């Protein structure tokens, strides 16, 4: 269970104003931040700097720990790597050349600026998202999605997924344990041939799929038993306080200002 929790529970207990804030405004503000971040043009370093300063300042107040936020933001790294070739492929002023014998690699000014911009944009956006999930309970995020008029069916699918991911991971762990218990080894002979092991793994995946299908059938019956009629219903959410609208409005205005300013002023 501990393993599952660390895998799925991004939320850190706390009592900062970020933790207490309405999940809906946190979600909207984060989305606004990411949109603004992505609309800042490449090379607008002041714009990037201000946005990064913003997100990290807020992170300080979250009380979650900058180190933890930083580690979680690294999830952006694989996506940033995709932008690496642009350093060499973008046409522009040549900064340096490496003769590889069969190919001359050229680092261009344009390419470097583009790459650095992508890096800062994606990393900072992911940092904002990591911060959001660290100070907001997943269930509140789900409710916020519903409150923001995301189709109810979609929210229901996500919440079922969230509920049964835990059950599924549990099931996988039980299967792995059962396999490990039977994976005895004689001296120097362990594991069996690769093809055979691949078959065993494939069998497990198949069994898991079939069990999940069976389970989904039973869940559906349990839902029918309690009156489910194919329409997703929820109780209405509490109305937002007027101060929440102000917070959202001010934040979005600031983000828009930075995005516009970095395009035309700096």
């Amino acid at each position, binding site marked *: 269970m501990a393993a599952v929790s660390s895998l799925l529970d991004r939320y850190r207990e706390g009592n900062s104003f970020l933790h207490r804030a309405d999940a809906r405004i946190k979600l909207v503000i984060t989305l606004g931040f990411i949109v603004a971040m992505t609309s800042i043009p490449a090379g607008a370093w002041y714009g990037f700097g201000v946005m990064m300063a913003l997100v990290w300042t807020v992170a300080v107040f979250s009380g979650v720990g900058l180190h933890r936020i930083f580690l979680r933001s690294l999830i952006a790294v694989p996506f940033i790597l995709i932008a690496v070739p642009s350093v060499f492929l973008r046409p522009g002023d040549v900064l340096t050349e490496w003769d590889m014998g069969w190919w001359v690699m050229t680092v261009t000014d344009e390419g470097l600026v583009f790459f650095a911009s992508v890096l800062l944009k994606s990393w900072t956006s992911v940092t904002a998202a990591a911060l959001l999930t660290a100070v907001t309970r997943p269930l509140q995020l789900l409710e916020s999605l519903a409150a923001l008029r995301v189709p109810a069916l979609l929210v229901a699918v996500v919440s079922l997924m969230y509920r049964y991911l835990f059950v599924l991971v549990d099931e996988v762990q039980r299967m792995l344990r059962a396999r490990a218990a039977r994976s005895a080894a004689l001296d120097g002979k362990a594991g069996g041939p690769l093809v055979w092991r691949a078959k065993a793994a494939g069998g497990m995946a198949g069994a898991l799929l079939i069990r999940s299908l069976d389970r989904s059938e*039973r869940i559906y019956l349990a839902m029918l038993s309690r009156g489910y009629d194919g329409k997703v219903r929820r109780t209405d959410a509490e109305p937002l306080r007027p101060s929440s609208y102000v917070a959202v409005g001010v934040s979005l205005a600031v983000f828009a200002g930075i995005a516009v300013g970095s395009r035309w002023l700096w």
Partner: protein
Amino acid sequence: MVEDGKPNGDTAGPAVDIRGLRFAYPDGREALRGVDLSIAPGEKVALVGPNGAGKSTLLLHLNGLLQGPEGRVNILGRDANSAKGRELQEIRALVGLVFQDPDDQLFSPTVFDDVAFGPIYMGLARDEVERRVVEALAAVGLDGFGGRMPFHLSGGEKKRAALATVLSMRPQVLALDEPSAGLDPRARRGIIRVLTGLEQTLLVTTHDMELVREVFPRTVIMDEGSVAADGPTEHIFGQRDLLEAHALECP
């Protein structure tokens, strides 16, 4: 439609009256071969028998999840075996069905959402829904568990939460599938306490003969898709060869 604390539906005649019920699964296996069973309102009945006897299949007929080609399943004057649409929804509000695996029963992100699911689909107002959730959780001894995630509950807590998900609908009949299976003695004790305190008509499948002796005055033995024996629990338990013939053990 109901006063506080009182289950809905009329109370004249038997709560459950099953006559000549037959059912075969699509693969041709005959699960029910003419079941006859009548249960009076408020009666607590244990349904025992070997695996594959048709006990769980019978429970699925009580609220029309399965409908057989032959027979009647009369629930307080409504036939669950032929009901459609709106009437089926009404029968499902009368019969609380709890599945064996609480992970199937608890499908919502929080315990509150799960217990509120039935009342929400009954079209109740928000404050009434909340009142019923509090009431149902209290009835199973899980006060204050509303915000918890089902995954973080213990086995016994899950079983009780599963029961609360139907109690919040204030059903007249409760059909439970193995409520004490897989529980440690203390959790099992907790479930027994809850079952003993229930006023509803109870039909409970189980292999837990101690549970039967303690909670249920009447026992029905099912085997090979029909009722093999039906009578007062002490009387049934006194017939050792009858129990053995149906792969049961006397506690």
